[in-house]
């Protein structure tokens, strides 16, 4: 398998606080790679580091991010912008804030197409209609004339999926794309993402906190805690026999309607503390090594 994205020992701090402490992660071509963890684990920061949209206080202190052979960390901003939209794109979490409320859907979609693919006004509109049909929007012509607030959450997410796939990218980062949706809509959106991804052979880094969603859509999974990947493997292997105590603890804390007898066990405090200590000790050792 060819790696589309290779993250090697990525360290990131926000201010003085370490957020990522040596993340290793490889997304292979045509696969959906789940990145699962709780809030504060650093999963969103991994995605933002790849796309180069980090908050201003964040600083990458070490490591490499390679996309299709290109070193993303030392890439000039202008070249990186050349990749975004064309070769890699993003499906964001909150479709309302990701769309500009004062422009019609049509304008927002054609802007991407005209800018990234250099299409003319008419060609871009035609392509936008095709894209909306692809994401199974019933009346694409009407939706193009609508404003984001006129659409339901599921419809808005479809528009963003259309926009993410617009230029046929090799790689997409999906950051909790279904968290804000009802379960029935979530299923449709996941199905849509999976279908487009398989048809076009796109690789996806799927960031989520929901083990259920990971089980359904991902080929491979990495579990992240306190800025480090604690376990990584194929989805079938990880769901059959989770290895790391933290992965097991996540399963034990997840309620299941089909197993109401299982007692829900929160992730034990000692385990969290131990993982934090491990991560801190690892940081310390690295720093000593560097100064030695």
């Amino acid at each position, binding site marked *: 398998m060819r790696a589309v994205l290779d993250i090697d020992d990525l360290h990131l701090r926000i201010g003085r606080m370490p957020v990522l402490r040596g993340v290793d992660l490889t997304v292979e071509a045509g696969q959906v790679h789940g990145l699962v963890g709780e809030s504060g684990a650093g999963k969103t920061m991994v995605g933002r580091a790849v796309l180069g949209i980090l908050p201003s206080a964040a600083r990458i202190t070490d490591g490499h991010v390679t996309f299709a052979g290109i070193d993303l960390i030392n890439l000039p901003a202008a070249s990186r912008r050349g990749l975004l939209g064309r070769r890699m794109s993003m499906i964001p979490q909150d479709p309302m804030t990701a769309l500009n409320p004062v422009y019609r859907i049509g304008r927002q979609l054609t802007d991407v197409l005209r800018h990234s693919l250099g299409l003319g006004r008419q060609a871009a509109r035609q392509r936008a209609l095709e894209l909306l049909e692809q994401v199974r929007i019933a009346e694409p012509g009407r939706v193009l004339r609508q404003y984001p607030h006129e659409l339901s959450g599921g419809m808005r997410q479809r528009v963003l999926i259309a926009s993410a796939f617009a230029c046929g990218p090799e790689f997409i980062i999906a950051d909790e794309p279904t968290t804000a949706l009802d*379960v029935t809509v979530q*299923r449709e959106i996941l199905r849509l993402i999976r279908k487009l991804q398989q048809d076009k052979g796109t690789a996806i880094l799927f960031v989520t906190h*929901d083990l259920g969603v990971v*089980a*359904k859509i991902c080929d491979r999974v990495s579990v992240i805690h306190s800025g480090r990947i604690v376990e990584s493997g194929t989805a079938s292997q990880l769901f059959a026999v989770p290895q790391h105590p933290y992965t097991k603890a996540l399963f034990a*804390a997840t309620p299941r309607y089909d*197993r109401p*007898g299982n007692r829900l066990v*929160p992730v034990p405090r000692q385990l969290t503390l131990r993982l934090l200590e491990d991560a801190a000790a690892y940081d310390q050792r690295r720093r000593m090594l560097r100064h030695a």
Partner: protein
Amino acid sequence: MLEARGLALALPDRAAKPWFGAAPLRPILNGIDMTVGAGESLGIVGESGSGKTTLGRCLLRLYKPTGGRLVFDGTDITDMEEPELRPLRARMQMIFQDPQASLNPRRRIAQIVAQPLLAFGLAADRQAALSAAHGLLERVGLNGGYGRRYPHELSGGQRQRVGIARAIAVKPALVVADEIVSGLDVSTQAQILALLAELKRDLGIALVLISHDLSVVRVVCDRVMVMQQGSVVETGPCAALFAAPSHPYTRTLLEAIPLPEIDPAWIEDEPSADVGSAEGRARAMDIEGSVAFVTGCNRGIGREMVAALATAGAAKIYASARHVEGLADLAAAHGGRVETLALDVTDHGGVAAAAQKCGDVTLLINNAGVNANRPLIGGDMAEQRREIETNYLGTLAMCGAFAPVLGRNGGGAIVNMLTILSRVNLPALGSYSASKAATFSLTQGVRAQLAGQGTLVVGVMPGAVDTEMSAHLPQPKLPPMEVAEAALAAVRQGIESIYVGEMAQGVAAGLAANATEVEKQFAEYLPQ
């Protein structure tokens, strides 16, 4: 405790407001009927826009309903004005979805929790209220200095704990919790749910838990109510409803939940294109208007089955048992609809005579069974013979005698009361398990044989049930009524095998995944 009848609410639709004049009213809740018993926990589930939050607020009279009646603790509070409601408010509390928005950012945590105590005059003075608040914070797991902090200094889970402490401060009889764990990490969620279960148990509070997450409701609640577009589509005990949801919408909701296990079909199938259940539904049968014959009615599941059939609107119920004297009260309770009948299922002449006499039966419920409570080796042969004669041969005789009756009456249904032990042997009850395994096999064979005449044959596999027969088994045990209701739900939907209760469902899932492992686990329960 709380009862709503035909509760309706319409709110002005600002989006449709004409330039001049009032906004038209839009119905949000349409005729909701529901009850919450003291100490009971009811889950209200539905998707966004189903009206579940509005209903929660209506129940506490934070909104005034525009129709129907709302009775809290014997008092009609539908149209009460605020001053009259005020003393009742202390007895019904709410925990809100967003603790960040519902906690005053300018007050310290202890002050926030002490506030309701002062407002309702439940504390002598400020000092007493504050010290009570510290006690309450400790009760919800916020020890030490949290009382002096401000809401923004706490994490989401800690803020939700404060919301809970504030709600239980006034010792309410009813708490409505609206989406209190959505947006929390699973680990924090598990902590909050554990706290909720503990408080519910210790304080005997009735709980209405509003959630979009059916898994959360299943773990916390006794009963569940499914809402869609302002109406109730289905309601029932959690165990029965989750085992056999009768409304298609409930099924769609359940299927849409991504369980944390690999299932490639989940993401490929078109939703609700469920051929299997549609085929099953072709043989589904209404209980209303049916004529039922129940064996073994003088106790346990049989007794409850008669009551469940009567409630479900069966036209006639033949209640049979070896000792018919015990059935007099059943007949009296349900008027002319229950006819009692002395029948020993091991007496094959008697069985044939019963089939002859009751020629109008459309629903046969084979419930009679005995349990020697013995292991296989070293057990009493006579007792084991009695088990086979009652559990296996008795059921076979009944199926045989009534098959032509059911065929003549359009197919109908047979329900065989089995047990999860029919699928795996529990050595301590070895001979009973074996006799029921034979009956499980019988159920499969009879189902195949009677498919031609359109008879639905249902096998009901509960876990331990709270009856005399299982008196020696440890808790938790299923209430027999729940088993009876689940069996009838299966008939209504044409489900051929139904596993009732957590234990049975867990074992069934285990058997499907790794039968040998389950057998090994059961082997640990050796006879003493």
